[in-house]
């Protein structure tokens, strides 16, 4: 094997694999520290996630959210941008979905109502991300700081709206009235019997189909269209993109807008698919989780779907762990996300010098 091929293998496979393994190993060590047998824990976790119908439903329900936010983070990464504002965009996306439902004629056909609401979620999420994009492109503010601020702004805005404006009359809970049922996205357990498959009740709804469609569309967009080409060129080598006549400003705006629109779809899965009203904090953790998903999935839609499934499994299985061990909760998934971001992101090249020295040393060549 030539040195280039070896390096390609190191960068493309060995390094990511070792990083993920390190994150797993660190989690296992944590389990040992808190007196939980990691193998037992893994078994329980897998049972919780896949052992029974309802568990499977929940697993895929959570996976759906992670696919949306993972894709959102990835598309920004491809443009060389770090969208840390997935939390706020998901939250505001949910607002958009709900407002469309409330604005439209309640007896409208679901065939119109649901697409309109999906559009509302994407529009609101997109605008919430495009504003920081605009500020970076035209005013030079740093997108990371601005998106963080927009996360907090989203949170305070939503509290205000849910307490003062949208709250169901006569109720104390800060949440909106129930959506009319023509805006309910069908549950998978209601749809499958039509195909002769029975499934236990779970929050899993048709958003998962939307998520998979989005994964394919993102792949198509990034690798099969001229706009995707322009985005990837900008992210890889900004001066070559300028050489090619690609406008940096436009790319920042477009990439952020798409990113926010994808994050906004979390609102569809959560609100149109399950809660059927606008509630508080349905989005918590998915925006940040998307960063881990994108890093682990190497910013490729296929990898993201796999990584999202992993995190969905951990999320649902984590709940099962909590029954078995009183000292574990779903927060173990948050720990794991942190470790994945640390080892697959910040410490991405930790092993590289060592691997290169070992597997692909520089040979002395006479110049």
């Amino acid at each position: 094997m030539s040195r280039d091929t070896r390096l390609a293998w190191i960068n493309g496979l060995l390094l990511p694999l070792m990083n993920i393994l390190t994150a797993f190993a660190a989690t296992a060590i944590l389990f040992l520290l808190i007196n939980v047998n990691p193998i037992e824990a893994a078994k329980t976790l897998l049972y919780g996630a896949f052992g029974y119908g309802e568990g499977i439903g929940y697993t895929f329900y959570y996976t759906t959210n992670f696919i949306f936010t993972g894709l959102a983070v990835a598309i920004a990464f491809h443009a060389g941008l770090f969208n840390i504002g997935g939390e706020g965009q998901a939250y505001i996306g949910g607002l958009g979905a709900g407002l469309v439902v409330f604005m439209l004629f309640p007896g409208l056909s679901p065939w119109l109502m649901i697409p309109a609401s999906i559009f509302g979620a994407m529009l609101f999420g997109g605008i919430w991300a495009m504003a920081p994009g605009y500020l970076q492109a035209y005013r030079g503010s740093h997108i990371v700081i601005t998106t963080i601020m927009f996360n907090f702004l989203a949170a305070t805005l939503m509290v205000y709206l849910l307490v003062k404006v949208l709250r169901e009359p006569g109720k104390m809970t800060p949440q909106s009235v129930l959506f009319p049922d023509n805006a309910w996205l069908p549950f998978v357990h209601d749809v499958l019997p039509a195909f002769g498959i029975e499934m236990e009740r779970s929050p899993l709804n048709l958003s998962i189909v939307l998520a998979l469609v989005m994964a394919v569309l993102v792949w198509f967009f990034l690798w099969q269209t001229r706009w995707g080409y322009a985005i990837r060129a900008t992210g890889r080598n900004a001066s070559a993109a300028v050489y090619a006549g690609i406008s940096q400003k436009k790319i920042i705006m477009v990439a952020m807008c798409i990113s926010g629109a994808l994050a906004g779809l979390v609102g569809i899965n959560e609100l149109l698919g399950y809660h059927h009203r606008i509630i508080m904090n349905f989005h918590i953790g998915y925006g940040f989780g998307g960063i881990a998903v994108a890093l682990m999935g190497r910013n490729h839609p296929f990898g993201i779907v796999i990584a999202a499934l992993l995190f969905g499994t951990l999320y649902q299985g984590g709940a099962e762990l909590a029954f078995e061990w009183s000292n574990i909760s779903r927060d173990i998934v948050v720990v794991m996300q942190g470790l994945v971001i640390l080892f697959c992101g910040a410490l991405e090249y930790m092993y590289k010098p060592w691997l290169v020295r070992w597997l692909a040393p520089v040979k002395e060549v006479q110049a």
Partner: protein
Amino acid sequence: MSLAIELENIDKRFGAVHANVNVDLQVREGSIHGIVGENGAGKSTLMSILYGFYHADAGTIKVFDKECHFQDSHQAIAIGIGMVHQHFMLIDNFTVLENVMLGAEGGYLLAEGMDKARTELQRLAREYGLDVDLDATIESLSVGLQQRVEILKALYKGAKILILDEPTGVLTPQETDELFKIFAALKEQGVTIVLITHKLREIMAVTDAVSVMRQGAMVAHVATETTSESQLAELMVGRKVLLDVTKSDIKPGEVLLKVKQLNWQDQHGVMRLKNINLDIRAGEVLGVAGVSGNGQSELLQVLSGINPIQDGCIEVHGNSFTVKQQTNAGKMREFGMAHVPEDRHKMGMITEFSAAESAILGYHKDAELNNGIWLKPDLVEKRCLDLMQAFDVRPNDVKLKSANFSGGNQQKLILAREMEHQPEVLLIGQPTRGVDVGAIEFIHQRILDMRGAGKAVLLVSVELEEILSLSDRIIVMCDGEITGRMAIEDADERSIGMLMANAQQAHDPLQANEKQGVQA
């Protein structure tokens, strides 16, 4: 007189780049020693090694007859070496005093060293004529004054040997004269000066001895009084294997590219292009000669639309562009401009992309590649394969990562991309830089084919041979200006070398006359 610096067999690599090859150097104490060579010849690397900033892979360093093994710059400073870098190592929002003190504060508290530093700096300023307001912030000072601060910094830290890397590159002629006066004062006080430059006039004007570097190696050491500018120019550029290209006789057609009164200023406010006027006809190659860094890159970038027009006018095949039209590279391409950039890794291709993807850089919007919203991979790959076959790119694997092709094959792919699109005007920067000899001939032939096909070609190269063998007419650039124009019949290496180096001083009346004489 004894030696201040003695380097033996210095060798340094950066990955695959062999920056210094077995370099020897001797500098006498109290002399002004010039080191000349083109950009990338390894001069700065060599001096950074002497300054302890990089470690040599092999070789010995002796300073004042003492063998030194520098771990960092601190040790080099301690032994009396000071360096003024090409890009100043100054903190813009610090005062002059703070900048000078950095690394030599004289105690944990600034107050302790501050008064001492102030007195000492005032003394140095008097002695060497280095006047500068110690409490001014760097960003408020002119480039010339900033350079004085750099010199003060070195002297304050007790430099007996002062290395200056391209010190005049950013100076006006007047500031340059001031600097040379400072040199004289320093020499008077026994300071040894090493002057790195590619400007031959300066070497002749101020140095006692000169060493010439080419491609990482020392090619000559001579006493200044025994050499001439043309001899140095020849040593610097070197002689490549002369490849025979035969130019067919073509009658130039209409003017395809016309540039009128183009000026351009960089972000630091330095004028990089000064009143550029030129035109190129169909079937003509205009060579732009000059030592690199004299405005050629900026000319290419403004013409190609990468940098916006600030002042002046560009006409491409009758379409005129001024500051009012916001040009970008995409728009210029649409009007028939193609551009082979000087640095293929930085601009010409995206090294992480596949060859097929790099082969459509700038042309990704082409209707024939797109089917509605779909940028069709089979069409993209077919385009790349066609280009590869037309230009004999090897391996002809369209999916291979761009980074994994050799330099020559990368360059051929870029040339293919830009040429096969049949542009009206082709801008080419350094077409054979880092390209193996076999590919050079091929590339030269293709450039002449473009000429034969009635295109206008602007060829920027630091290889004089290349310019001479391909061009119909030649312009020489120096310090952002066109300092000479000539038809190929009137051109020879010596006269071009003089223009490249000498013509800088436009205020020199003798020079101005000579320039008039060769106006094409």
